[in-house]
């Protein structure tokens, strides 16, 4: 069986012999990082990801309960294998304390949007108000022409709300990136 060099010709080289280099599917990954809040830490993380040829789709940063420690949530679209590389490289950064790819772990995620909607007619004001109620968001600023709505929730919820108010005309909009956390409880229905 084993040593038959010379007896097998080139034709005998079958493709299964060759190692498959696993290429994962391309999808959105949610990565959370705990970092030391040092000079340039954000630039370092952005440089690393850009250096791999990926775009950062979403990014949110804020202090944690511990002094000098910040938490980041990153959204990156990419190939599973390369994102795995990115996570390993992020872990290598001196200022990162913890890096987790939450994509395949049960987790809670939220984002916040401020949406300034045209509401010049009474009908529009009624409709938007109704939507605000249904979506359990809040109106945080009112002018004769506009309502500014604050909404928090999953990306889907925020998207759905935006779709519904679009016909009225959106004057201005600001969205934070996502914040995410691993779920400790058994997964439950989101509100």
């Amino acid at each position: 069986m084993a040593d038959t060099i010379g007896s097998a010709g080139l034709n005998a080289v079958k493709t299964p012999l060759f190692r498959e280099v696993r290429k994962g599917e391309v999808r959105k990954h949610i990565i959370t990082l705990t970092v030391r809040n040092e000079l340039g830490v954000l630039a370092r993380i952005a440089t690393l990801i850009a250096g791999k040829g990926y775009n950062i789709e979403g990014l949110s940063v804020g202090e944690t309960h511990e002094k000098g420690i910040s938490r980041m949530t990153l959204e990156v679209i990419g190939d599973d294998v390369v994102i795995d590389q990115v996570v390993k490289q992020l872990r290598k950064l001196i200022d990162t304390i913890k890096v987790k790819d939450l994509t395949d772990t049960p987790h809670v995620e939220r984002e916040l949007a401020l949406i300034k909607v045209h509401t010049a007619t009474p009908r529009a004001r009624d409709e938007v108000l109704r939507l605000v109620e249904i979506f359990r968001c809040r109106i945080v600023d009112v002018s004769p022409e506009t309502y500014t709505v604050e909404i928090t929730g999953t990306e889907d919820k925020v998207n759905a709300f935006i779709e519904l108010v679009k016909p009225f005309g959106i004057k201005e909009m600001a969205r934070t990136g996502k914040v995410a956390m691993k779920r400790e409880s058994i997964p439950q229905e989101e509100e």
Partner: protein
Amino acid sequence: MPRKGADIVIETLKEEGVEIIFGHPGGAIMEVYDALYRDGSIRHILARHEQGAGHMAEGYAKATGKVGVAMSTSGPGATNLVTAIADAYMDSVPVVFITGQVPTHLIGNDAFQEVDIVGITRPITKHNFLVKRIEDLPLILRQAFYIARTGRPGPVLVDIPKDITQKLSDVLIPSLEEVKESLPGYRPHLEGNLQQIKKAAKLIMEAKRPVLYVGGGAVQAEAQKELVELAELMKIPVTTTNMGKGAFPELHPLALHMLGMHGTYYANMAVYNCDLLIAVGARFDDRVTGKVEEFAPQAKIIHIDIDPASISKNIVVDVPIVGDVKIVLRKLLEEIKREGAKLYFPEERQKWLERIEGWKKKHPLTYRKSNTVIKPQYVIEQIYEATKGDAIISTGVGQHQMWSAMFYKYSFPRQFINSGGLGTMGFGLPAGIGAKLGRPDKEVFVIDGDGSFMMTMQELITAVQYKVPVKIAIINNGYLGMVRQWQELFYERRYSEVDLSVQPDFVKLAEACGAVGFRAEKPSEVREIIEEALKIQDRPVVMDFHVDREENVLPMVPAGKSYRDMILDDGKKAIEAETMYLVG
């Protein structure tokens, strides 16, 4: 006691055991130079270009295993260091780069000689720092050394604004414990997972056709003893990468020498046909793997590396083991011995070694000899013989680098010093100077190309100033040889901009600098001038070897191709010479 920031720098360097700094002064770093002068206990080598200083620090670090230090002023001084920093990053060389910066209040103002060197070097350093408060200065410097030398080593840059070097402070130098505590996210993993090690041990005993594939990580970890023991105990042939040279003694009967693009026929055949590949401190570089799908196509792969990010980066492996190579190999050996060190297929293993012997006999590393023109390989063989295989060799980048890898046989780690990852022409001379300063007990030969030499030849004068007796052998083919070779093989001999026949008279250049110069134009002169050069111990020697202009480096696997496409020294393809395929 309050003292200037600059004095704190020197104090910290002394605490770290720094004995030599390579650098070039300027306005922003002047206080540190003054402190260096006043202190007087650390040696400084004035390179003629900061790139040279950087490569010298690398050569010193590569030859000694200690952390190298290079220093420059802000702006152009700092940017001149960039090539060396990138080079150190690619080859995991522990070097601390210290740069002066404009005073804190001018940062961001486009001040004279200001450049954001921390921003520029972010992707090419293991870590970098801008010192903003004098109280942080000693801690940052100690962190820099700690980060540079631990885990997967690498370059760390510390940028120090001028006012920080001038301010007074009585801050204390922190202890190593404090340094470690201050880096909560940095915990290099050294031990290796025992379950994985057990799995690896089993695979090694079960394999019929194993090969060890050893890289620079094994040199860094100084794991030669463990490697030899494992290879001999389990009868495993060993191939090393360019960076791994010397990690396994090349005269050992189990040595397969280098693999990859310019690897030996037998190393590449062994890797292509093996059923178990044990990668040790190697990173599956594309110069090694060629076409990844066809790299060791039948093999299970074990990968031992200190850097978790190196594992399964280019090739998915079966048994990953993250840890210090030396520690993991020791545990692996223990495990194998505990299991009685038995080979499951001793006969197959024996046949495998015989097969490899056959390949070695059939296509040894060789070249066509000549009595009329000097063959570059001949020069390197003569250097090997004249130095009895005991010299440290430093090279530039190109054909001469590959011939130096092939025709000098390396038996100890840190013996072959070259720019493996970045492939930096101009690396050889300054790195050789750094190596000689670090290892004055060894002969250091710089085997350089004429093109590479011309990139940093101003450092010859540095070697003269400090009486560094490096022996510089220029393999002078009047071409950018490696590029010419590619043009010959892959661009139908369109020799676009590779002619270097207009060049200085290197003998006169050497003399002008106060060095000694020799030239050889006939094969009969080669050995003679090497012997002459070896006698000179108080200054550098330049040997200008006029070699066959169109000699090629063979064998060669064309970039991105499979080992089956390897071109042999007779111009044949490996696939024509022998079918590279085993069933089993």
